[in-house]
């Protein structure tokens, strides 16, 4: 007899941490993006994805930390009211 404590991969995707946001959420303006991928490489959640010069955040998981807006070198991401 076993208790089910071994986990298959990435069941965490069922935990929608987007519900953590209270104040702000990132908005990707898609105006000046140079495709540097800093946003993708700086998100602690790993919920930013895209390619070339179009990146987006998955709001199901985004905790609203604001790092992406802070690191974008061309200010193409802003934090707006939730």
């Amino acid at each position: 007899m076993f208790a089910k404590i071994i986990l298959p991969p990435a069941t965490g995707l069922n935990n929608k941490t987007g519900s953590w946001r209270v104040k702000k959420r990132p908005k990707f303006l898609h105006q000046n993006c140079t495709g540097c991928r800093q946003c993708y490489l700086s998100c602690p959640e790993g919920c930013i994805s895209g390619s070339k010069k179009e990146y987006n955040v998955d709001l199901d998981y985004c905790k609203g930390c604001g790092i992406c807006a802070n690191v974008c070198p061309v200010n193409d991401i802003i934090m707006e009211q939730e």
Partner: protein
Amino acid sequence: MKEFLEGAVAIARTVATCKPAVISAYPITPQTHIVEELASLIANGKLKAEFINVESEHSAASCVLGASATGVRVYSSTSSQGLLLMAEVLFNAAGLRLPVVMCCVNRAVSAPINIWNDQQDIVTVRDAGLILLFAETIQEACDLHIQAFKIAEDPNIMLPCLVNIDGFILSHGYEPVEIPSQDLVDKFLPSYNPPYKLDVNNPLTFGPLVGPEWYLETRYAIQETLNNDVKKKIVEVAEEFTKLFGRKSYGLFEEYKTEDAETIFVTMGSLAGVIKEVVDELRERGEKVGLLRIITYRPFPEEVAKVLLKAKRILVLEKCISLGAKGPLCEDVISVLYTQVSSNGSKLPTVQNFICGLGGRDVSKEELLEAYKDTTILKFIGLKKENLGSFI
């Protein structure tokens, strides 16, 4: 064919026939000869295995835990302080449901530091969810090792299994032993095929943080596994072993002249050898006595109650004590007797607890014959009052 071998060497050579893949251990008297022999076998090409010389027993157990999780057969060995140091890892391996097989060469626990035999070490981890087997002889120690792999690695069991042998008595003593042939072992013991493992082709997560909503069932699962699957498997495997290897393996416990016994000794380990002689001598004097030798200590077989309730007096002899209470073996015996008795209204026999052999003190047949006449409920056999008094 029998060879006259040191216990540790016999065990190591038997373990080698089981083909462990990863062996890791740390030196501690009196287990070290086992791993030294294994290292020698590997160095001489007689065993293909990874041998990890670790920096402590905690790491030895952790290494074999990691290797077991990666899906290979593992082995380690320890005693006393080493067992205590790795206690946390043993609980962890049981909780993770990994079949780590080890030999515990029973030795006294510090302080004071003492390298000689008693069973105080192993009883400290009796709550961990481990399968604990006790050997009386070197031959039995070898036989139990082969069975240990088969029991532990059963895909419905997957729990650590420790074979216990009395330090020096069985580890350094010599006996004519038969190391089973590789063919027989290969026939008996399948290769390890775990139901789960660390595998990049099937990336599982082991050891999550489990909250109050889920933890309880993990313990229930181990309890059920020990009380049902393990007991059944031990009996099955012992029968299979007896048939295939032509040597009797008893499974849960051995009964020696208990059929009409009015007094039954209970013990585990090599002390049984002395007690069997005591039983024989008492029988010659007309006393109706017998011995029940516990081989499987965890799970503790409730079946012993049926045997013991035939008698009027039970003498539990053990080389350990739960300081502040009784001997652990005695506590387990009383517990199963009580459960049985309270359910069918029969009478409880008198149970006496004799603590002996601590720190390697010799237990003689004469002392036991004297103790047989004693009616004290809890007694330290061979106590020397002159060693007591002031602390200096």
